[in-house]
């Protein structure tokens, strides 16, 4: 279900998240949406969005943080939490080790404290390049801790979601992370702390069906695939082709599930403006 959600790029390129500066790479990339040939440096400048059609290329967690928060303000928390293998699932530790090596990430989410236009936030950014951005124990724990930190510090919480859903290799324990993160959000809500959730491509399954959908304000990047069940499983179940644009950010906007579709180049200022409207994390009387 999950893998097929990830729209297969029609071009050949090193995955955005794993592309390293020191590796000589194509100078040019083709936009999969409008076929525009894009100069790689230009692409970086526009935060991996197509200058012609606005298509958002996938973005890794570290890049995203850099593009979102004030320079030098990000302090990572819980950086060294790693998964164990609770179900003794064959190959899982090896898969994790390989992914950690390839992505230079310990898990599918990076969390920390930072500032946006001088306003303090707790921020979590998921990375679809790490086992499909799936949520197992570590993602669930880091999200819960980020929420608790936002409550404790009384600062707003921002989470960028990108996930294929629950981490299959941790089975039922992954499922329970949905209740765990939502439970923590119930407390955040009670504490009157602002939570802005940002859907990026793709977010499905247990992450959409838990913390990612529960923002006070929910944003999404243009064209991002967002849904509960992946399109392939739906097609198999109902035996019909899905309508054009089904489960995109625009589709969700139309159906009332998100507040705004925000292009990546506008994201930072949009977040800053929203933060500005919520002094000290929430209502002043909260």
């Amino acid at each position, binding site marked *: *279900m*999950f*893998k097929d959600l990830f729209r297969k790029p029609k071009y050949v390129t090193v995955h955005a998240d794993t592309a390293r500066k020191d590796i000589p790479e194509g100078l040019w990339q083709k936009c999969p949406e409008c076929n525009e040939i894009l100069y790689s440096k230009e692409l970086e400048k526009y935060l991996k969005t197509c200058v012609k059609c606005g298509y958002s290329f996938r973005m890794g967690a570290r890049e995203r943080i850099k593009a979102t928060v004030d320079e030098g303000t990000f302090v990572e928390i819980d950086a*060294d*939490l*790693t*998964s*164990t*293998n*609770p*179900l003794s*699932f*064959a190959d899982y530790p090896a898969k994790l080790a390989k992914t950690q090596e390839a992505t230079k990430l310990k898990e599918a989410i990076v969390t920390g404290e930072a500032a946006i236009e001088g306003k303090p936030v707790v921020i979590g950014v998921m990375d679809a390049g790490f086992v499909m951005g799936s949520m197992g*124990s*570590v993602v*669930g*724990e880091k999200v*819960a801790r980020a929420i608790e930190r936002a409550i404790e510090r009384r600062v707003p919480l921002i989470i960028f979601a990108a996930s294929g859903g*629950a981490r*299959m290799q*941790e*089975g*039922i*324990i992954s*499922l*329970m*992370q*949905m*209740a*765990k993160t*939502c*439970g*923590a*959000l*119930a*407390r955040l*809500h009670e504490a009157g702390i602002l939570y802005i959730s940002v859907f990026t491509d793709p977010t499905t*399954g*247990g992450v*959409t*069906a*838990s*913390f*990612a*959908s*529960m923002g006070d304000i929910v944003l999404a990047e243009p064209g991002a695939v967002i*849904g*509960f*069940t992946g399109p392939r*499983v*739906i097609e198999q*179940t*109902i035996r019909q082709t*899905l*309508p054009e644009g*089904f*489960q995109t950010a625009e589709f969700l906007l139309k*159906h*009332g*599930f998100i507040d705004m579709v925000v292009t990546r180049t506008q994201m930072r200022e949009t977040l800053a403006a929203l933060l500005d409207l919520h002094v000290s994390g929430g209502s002043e009387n909260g």
Partner: protein
Amino acid sequence: MANVILEFEKPILELEAKIEELQTFSKEKEIDLSEEVQTLQKKVETLKKSIYGNLTPWQSVMIARHPERPATIDYIKMIFEGFMELHGDRFYGDDPAIIGGIARFKGQPVTVIGHAKGKDTKENLVRNFGMPHPEGYRKALRLMEQAEKFNRPIITFVDTPGAYPGIGAEERGEALAIATNLTKMMALRVPVIATVIGEGGSGGALAIAVADHVSMLENAVYSVSSPEVFASILWKDSTKAQDAAVMMKMTSKDILSLGIIDEVIPEPIGGAHKDLQKIAGTLADSLQKALNNLKQQPIETVLEKRYDKFRSIGHYISG
């Protein structure tokens, strides 16, 4: 309904047929075969114990999905008095895949909610095989909030392959409906007791199972997805569901040992469908015990424990 026999149960059936044959024969011919019959009967008992006592995970799945397995409605009829079904989510519609209402449990008004599987194909088409749409989860939440208002404990029965994967479900926000239930259930100021009675499939199951006391019937299964979906995600091959069932650790015994649930409720030998009266009695006793225990605690304590219960689930290391 015709008796549905699972493949692995056939040896038991064959032996039972043989016993019957012998008994008929002995009656007709007036030959005393009671000793032989007794030997065979002992053998059947041993066989039953060895088969049902050592079910493979896939065999558990087969029993959990057994067409004759008691459903939510059966337990409602057996365990509660004066059930009044309430309908609708007040936004869009009434989802027959979730049944809910008010009844008395040992004299006390409670709210009862459960996934509703059908008894036959016709009913299953109406009930969508127990796979709810968003309006089902919203109905459940509405009834839970109503229960909170009137200080009624909530008792839920989980029995679903999962939330329905369809166009309408996505358009109406299946994910949000589930997420909302997970969030709001954590803060409900009344005791909540959930029992997985058959299939506990994915977020669609959890959406009515964030509870203070969570139990599973012995042959129920609980998992992050159905074994078929699991196999298709990991191996791109849904026919490997049997292997998936093993790896997922989805049986009540496994789920208990992983610390996800509080209790396994023993079933009659061969499964709940072999003796509804008996399983309903055992389940009622378990519910009463859990409810009495919860009612003795201040609600703040109950809420704190509910939070900690789910908050503490996770396996990770630092470093």
